[in-house]
């Protein structure tokens, strides 16, 4: 099957999957309920999500493990089940993926290093524990995502790199400032991200979440200004959520998202997928555009 990076380096543009969190909610996950516990209690529902993205034409799917570090799981009293829940997450996606790729999702811990919430060692150990579970369940790559702090991202990358044989990817989340620059919540720009994360061992970089695919084009252009070689992935939200009739909806349609795919490929993105609010419908349309280019 080879490696994702090898395919990218051969010049292929690949399609990733869409949202998991908002999809789980559609399937009945309640606020306050632990998403990762569904890997054990409702594996069929989780499998359905993975399978639906495969059917939409994705080359790779993520795992239901975004909040799978002990720091997130312990809020649900599940801090001692990190390995089990992450392994189960990867097994479900592995089963759905067949000969396609599985990206083991790793999200931020919610702890802030500079406030002394945690030490670097504690963060590293937590990420290591999660990554070992994902690898054991069959993940091909570790997808560290939605990062806002450079140090936390670096520690996650090192933990994945030094303890697993998986490919190691990392994306951060950027918003536009009032002055029109892209910055993460912690003030990191896309260009500041590049060298630090590559030095830490990331084999692919990019951006996820945020306010829709349009901003992603600008972010990819910034990354490409400082590095023309590193593979770049985007997982874009379906726009900024709006509140309608007692629920929040993401306004960007599959057609709207697909209409920007060519631009983002030209900007230099190698793998394109979705984040919050995107559906198999979005991925299907992205696939069509990528195949036609």
């Amino acid at each position, binding site marked *: 099957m080879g490696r994702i990076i090898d395919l990218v380096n051969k010049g292929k543009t690949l399609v990733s999957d869409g949202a998991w969190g*908002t999809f789980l*909610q559609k399937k009945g996950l*309640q*606020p*306050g309920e632990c998403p990762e516990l569904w890997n054990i209690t409702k594996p069929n529902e989780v499998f359905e999500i993975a399978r639906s993205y495969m059917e939409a034409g994705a080359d790779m799917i993520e795992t239901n493990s975004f909040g799978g570090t002990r720091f*997130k799981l312990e*809020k649900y009293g599940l801090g001692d089940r990190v390995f089990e829940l992450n392994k189960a997450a990867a097994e479900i996606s592995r089963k759905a993926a067949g000969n396609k790729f599985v990206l083991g999702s790793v999200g931020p811990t*919610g702890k*802030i290093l*500079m*406030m002394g919430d945690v030490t670097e060692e504690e963060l590293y150990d937590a990420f290591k524990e999660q990554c070992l579970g994902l690898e054991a369940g069959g993940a091909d790559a570790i997808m560290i995502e939605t990062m*806002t702090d450079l140090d936390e991202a670096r520690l996650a990358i090192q933990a994945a790199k030094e303890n697993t044989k998986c490919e190691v990817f990392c994306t951060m989340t950027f918003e536009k*400032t*009032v*002055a029109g*620059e892209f*910055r*993460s*919540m*912690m*003030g990191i720009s896309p260009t500041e991200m590049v060298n630090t994360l590559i030095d830490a061992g990331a084999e692919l970089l990019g951006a996820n979440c945020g306010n829709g695919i349009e901003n992603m084009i600008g972010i990819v252009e910034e990354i490409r200004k400082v590095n023309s070689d590193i593979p770049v992935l985007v997982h874009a939200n379906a726009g900024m*959520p*709006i*509140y309608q009739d*007692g*629920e*929040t909806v*993401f306004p960007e349609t599959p057609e709207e998202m697909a209409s920007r795919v060519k631009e983002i490929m030209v900007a230099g993105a190698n793998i394109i997928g979705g984040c*919050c609010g995107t559906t198999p419908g979005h991925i299907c349309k992205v696939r069509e555009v990528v195949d036609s280019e």
Partner: protein
Amino acid sequence: MSELLSKIAECIEFGKINKAAPYPPQMKGQDGADELTRQALDEGIHAQDILSKSLMIGMEKVGIKFRENKVFVPQVLMSAKAMNTAMVHLKPFFLSGEVKQKGKFIIGTVEGDLHDIGKNLVSMMVEGNGWEVIDLGTDVKADQFVAAVKEHENAFVGLSALLTTTMVNMEKITKAIKEAVPGAKVAVGGAPVTNDFCKKIGADAYSPDPQGLVEYLNAQVA
């Protein structure tokens, strides 16, 4: 006296905690909020003046810079740390009643939501601007907010949410608070929250940044 107060304000604005703190680099080796606040009290400066003429000034400056995206979360957290260090020295004067706070502010992340970074930022900014903050934590249910509003008369309430799925709980909580205590004022905030949403659910105030909330609160007691 005014020179010392403006030095403390500067420590708050730039997040200089104490002499030993390496951050910010340009203030390395200088006295920080810790030493200077102690010194001010020793020189007989009133605790009230230290609060309103330096801590609040420094917090306001960093709040405005944060709103303008000139600084980001780490800088605000360092400022809040510096402020907390100064507050330790002022605590006895709060307890004795010599220093008067502007009012009470109850804050919590709403039911179903376990995220606390935004809530903590707001909490620190509001406290640094002279308010007593009652922090109910995360995953706070409507009846917990109602109980707090009943216990703390005339307190303002702030609801925080990060997730699009939990922000909908703000509507239920706002209604419960207003039913239990008519006239209670509820402010809402968090990444997915908008002014439009605030109006739709019948809340009283929304701000995309902590400073906007501080300004709203201050205007209510002006």
